[in-house]
């Protein structure tokens, strides 16, 4: 298994608050690597650095053997690094289908095209349709994204990520705010995604994490305090006191 995405000694502080403390982490082909940790541990900040929304203070990020530490978010996305957001981030005024089509469009050649109506673009619509087929959404395609239920917005984010044809997926709490009835279905979706994409999964739902992840790293105060297989983490005392508590 080769390393797709790696950080080397990544550090980030907001003033006196250290949110990423010398983090070196790897994502390999075919695996799901879960990053867990208490609220405010710095998980989202870490993903923001990976996707280019936040500049690290020091350290390096490598993706597919290239140093992307200083690449723009768009360049990283185009290199194949896709992400979803803990707080749903979609285009609320566009339809469900248009949101997915926007993700697909970035993979279908130049968008500096000014005349042909985009809604008739077969290449884009086919790619968006494929992604929507894989993520079952019960709503109609022409429904405005802002009118979707919370659960469907979460699913829409996943569909957008797939339509990007990514080489690796960063999922920041895909189950945030999802009820227990829907979480089982979403866990199945994650298992399905894992077949095709290496996943860096941030998640508070431990049932899902232990079901899907091949490797788990525990982040506390910006530091990785433990890393190993799900069973090793379950048995790790430090990890349990820091985070897992009564859940296991």
């Amino acid at each position: 298994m080769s390393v797709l995405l790696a950080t080397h000694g990544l550090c980030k502080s907001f003033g006196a608050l250290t949110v990423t403390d010398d983090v070196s982490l790897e994502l390999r082909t075919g695996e799901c690597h879960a990053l867990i940790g208490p609220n405010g541990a710095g998980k989202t900040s870490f993903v923001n650095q990976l996707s280019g929304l936040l500049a690290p203070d020091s350290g390096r990020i490598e993706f597919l053997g290239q140093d992307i530490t200083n690449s723009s978010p768009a360049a990283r996305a185009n290199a194949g690094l896709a992400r979803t957001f803990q707080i749903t981030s979609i285009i609320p005024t566009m339809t469900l289908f248009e949101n997915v089509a926007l993700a697909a469009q970035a993979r279908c050649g130049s968008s500096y095209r000014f005349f042909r109506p985009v809604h008739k673009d077969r290449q884009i619509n086919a790619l968006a349709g494929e992604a929507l087929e894989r993520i079952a959404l019960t709503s109609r395609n022409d429904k405005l994204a802002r009118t979707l239920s919370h659960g469907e917005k979460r699913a829409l984010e996943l569909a957008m990520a797939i339509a990007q044809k990514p080489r690796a997926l960063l999922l920041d709490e895909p189950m945030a705010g999802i009820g227990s009835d829907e979480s089982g279905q979403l866990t199945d979706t994650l298992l399905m995604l894992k077949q095709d994409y290496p996943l860096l999964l941030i998640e508070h739902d431990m049932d899902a994490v232990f079901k899907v992840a091949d490797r788990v790293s525990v982040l506390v105060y910006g530091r990785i305090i433990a890393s190993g297989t799900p069973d090793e983490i379950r048995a790790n005392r430090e990890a349990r006191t820091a985070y897992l508590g009564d859940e296991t």
Partner: protein
Amino acid sequence: MRAAAPALVAFMFLAAMPLLAEFWGGSYVTGLIMRAMILAIAALSLDLLIGTCGLVSFGHAAFLGIGAYTAGIAITEGTTDLATILGITIGISVLFALVTGAISLRTHGVTFIMITLAFGQMLFFTFSALSEYGGDDGLTLWERAYAYGLFEFEHGLFYTIFGLLVAIWLLLDRLRQSRFGRVLLAAKENSTRMETLGYGVFGYRLTAYVIAGVIAGIAGALTANEAEFVSPALSAWQRSGDLIIVVVLGGVGRRSGPVLGALAFVVLEEGLSSLTHDWRLIFGPLLIFIVLFAKGGLASLFERRQA
């Protein structure tokens, strides 16, 4: 189609205007309508920024000044070929848009408004300082540009402006529905998301800014020909404000908005100013009234409410 209908009806009405003016109003009416059509072209270009990109430029009249002074100076210096004049106008507009856009598009919200205002005023003072070309007083032109005999026909200028208006409307209407347009519209709502989907939003916005600048530059060159007079006031912030008013009045981001807004603006301005010198005192409240009661501007009055 429904959203485009008011504009199409307006175009048919405009096309018939020179004929109608034979019976009533004559060259006074055709002159008024020519001004309205030029204003519509400028407003269309500004709505590309406001309606499609969410960028409120308060210095868009700078491009009107560029086009007008290019035409004015060229004609004064003996270059009267319209194609040449438009070519130079487009070139200068592209340069000015690239430079000012590259700077202003790095800012957002109020800062963007202020910085575009500053660039506009910069140009206003530059034109005011052109003492060989009239300085503060402006520049009177002794002839119009020449376009392969086009203007020799009666109403040649009228139909040139009309043709450009229709062509630009069509072009921008297509653009809004293209790949490029969809990226701009989405980035207006959520530019961070667009970045993480792989779109360098800055480049798309800069391109839109250049396109808008070029179109407004063309409107400026037409203004010079229609009025046979150019003055620094064309690029002053008040003029930029008028353009924003036209866009809001017509309906931001609506297919027929800028065309309806420009027609209404010119008619209101002309009607009210013939009543009183302080016509803006009436115009202001009227505008507020329209914006309050027709949130999407005049265009929304013609569009059926969506469920």
